[in-house]
């Protein structure tokens, strides 16, 4: 990958990481402003960014409870996201969705579902819509290793294959569903093995942005060519707790060693190192971006702070579309 391209991807990842960090910093501040359960994306940035890099605005992304990264990577509006976390009516869901349901249809981000796997079948239906319309748009759904256990994922995969639908199934295998490790839930060591007779699957390093971008590029190209659904499994790790702001380290299951090992492989950090190895110019560029980014994030939080709350009557709006 060209280093300038990598730098672009780095920035996108860093932006997501930084937004999550600022949310975490402010989450328990005095006079808490964010009254919404958060599931931060740190550690998995390469997946969202690498995949979405290959999607156009007309393509659509479906997400889950851990939706901040997908939303931002696909071009969801940052200000509206923060305003949503702040319960403001300028939020992307007018304050009705909160952290787990980010949505920006203009950017091609469908409403995220906090029902695990809830969106996998919906994304499949959306893909069918695209196919019926005869356009070349891709429907892309992000879901976890835990989600893959829901029967509707199997149902969706079978149907997508039957109808050769233009859908990209992206499984982010971080090896945990809340605090339950993969081995206690899964018969096999990878998720995609379960489905490999039904559709093309690959298991890939989800912390290497070059790997993710490259594999998704190929998959998206095939899907646009009408080859039908593809399943990409990215092995990754969340460096945060399942929800809230901790690191999720825990004697019994997520040990400090495990965490340290994965922290070493943090995708943002890996990309940064790679850039610097490439050329010293990136040291300065990265610093510059840091400033730019902090400014953007501060503005987003300021926007959220200043925005009005929804009015009482608004509770009754938007039920019927």
């Amino acid at each position, binding site marked *: 990958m060209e280093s300038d391209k990598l730098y672009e991807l780095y920035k996108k990842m860093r932006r997501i990481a930084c937004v999550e960090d600022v949310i975490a910093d402010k989450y328990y501040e005095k006079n808490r402003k964010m009254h919404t359960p958060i599931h931060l994306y740190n550690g998995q940035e390469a997946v969202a960014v690498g995949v979405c890099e290959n999607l156009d605005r007309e393509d659509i992304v479906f997400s889950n409870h851990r939706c901040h990264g997908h939303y931002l990577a696909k071009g969801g509006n940052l200000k509206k996201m923060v305003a949503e976390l702040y319960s403001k009516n300028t939020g992307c869901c007018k304050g*009705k969705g909160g952290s787990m349901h980010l949505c920006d249809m203009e950017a091609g981000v469908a409403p995220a579902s906090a029902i695990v796997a809830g969106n996998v*079948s919906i*994304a499949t239906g959306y893909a069918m819509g695209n196919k019926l319309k005869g356009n070349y748009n891709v429907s892309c759904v992000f879901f976890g290793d835990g989600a893959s256990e829901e029967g509707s994922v199997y*149902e*969706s995969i079978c149907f997508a294959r039957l109808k050769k639908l233009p859908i990209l199934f992206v499984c982010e295998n971080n090896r945990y569903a809340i605090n339950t490790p993969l081995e206690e839930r899964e018969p096999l060591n990878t998720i995609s093995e379960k489905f490999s007779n039904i559709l093309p699957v690959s298991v890939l390093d989800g912390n290497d942005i070059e790997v993710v971008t490259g594999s998704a590029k190929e998959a998206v190209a095939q899907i646009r060519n009408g080859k039908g659904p593809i399943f990409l499994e990215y092995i990754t790790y969340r460096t945060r707790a399942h929800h809230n702001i901790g690191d999720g380290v825990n004697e019994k299951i997520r040990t400090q060693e495990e965490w340290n090992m994965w922290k070493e492989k943090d995708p943002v950090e890996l990309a940064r190192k790679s850039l610097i190895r490439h050329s010293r110019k990136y040291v300065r560029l990265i610093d510059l971006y840091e400033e730019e980014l902090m400014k953007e994030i501060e503005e987003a939080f300021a926007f959220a702070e200043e925005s009005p709350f929804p009015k009482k009557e608004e509770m009754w709006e938007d*039920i019927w579309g």
Partner: protein
Amino acid sequence: MSEADKKGKERFLSYTEAEKEAVELMLKKSPDIVLMGQGINDENAMFGVTDGLYKKYGTDRIFDTPLAETGLTGIAIGLAMSGYKVLYMHNRPDFLYLAMDQIINHAAKYSYMSGGQVNIPLVVWAVTGQGWGSAAQHSQSIHGIMMQVPGLKIVMPTTPADAKGLLKTAMDDKSPVLFLEHRRLFGQEQVVPEGEYGIPFGKGVLRREGTDVTVIAISAMVIDAIEASERLQEEGISTEVIDLRTVKPYDRELLITSVSKTKRVVIADTSWITGSVAKEISEFIYRELFEILEKRIEIVALPDVPTPAAYVLEDIYYQNADSIYYAVKRLMEDKE
């Protein structure tokens, strides 16, 4: 009334023919209608509603489904979100319990959760079975269970003409609609107007005017209510029969007008009594017409047991014209 409509007045159609007409008129006009369901293109063709349609409109838009109600409901929602009007048809509502997460957690909530960014124009259609030993898993009316869900409309037409008009309204709605039928209604034939027409949700209709007692009936119970009212008429008891047509929203105004006049009420429902739509409506009437009601409201609904298979038990389990007849008689005791 246009010439065409006048001529239409002469045409007798069955319930499912009327629905087929509604669907076909929409299919002809608009390329964004999708029909789906297990067996939709087979001989049975959803009791005839989709008979042969795939030949004209293609199996892309009218497609048979695998047996996967959970996932396929999600798929229907995604299709609807992408801009299609989707009619997902089921032979029985009993199978919809597999789709509850998608209907309740997704279809009914997505517009709201997204602050109005998406619409889910999805009609879920299903036909309640009754009789013939269908037993506990092939006989359920689920409107009482679904009634509590915000974001969901529930439509239960009883006549062929209403089925046609309400199906159009349902398909034109931006939001999810549960369209519930009943096998006992399929025996009917009726003059059905030609051309497209819609019937608004939330409007019941008087099937018979009367002065002594109001019988509010849901779905197949309308047939029984009319039968009972004919017998009662012979005995000099004048019953007003209301066909509720849509359960959510329901026509509060019509109920108030009618009951204000008769002051006596029977509510006949096709489902279990506890937690039923009949109870909801009964409560509404008590509340609104507390001082006016002359008698306790009589509810005719199923006993709180799973459906037994044996026909001798079905005979006492299912309610019918007799049940309504006696309920009215009980209400009239003091008057006679």
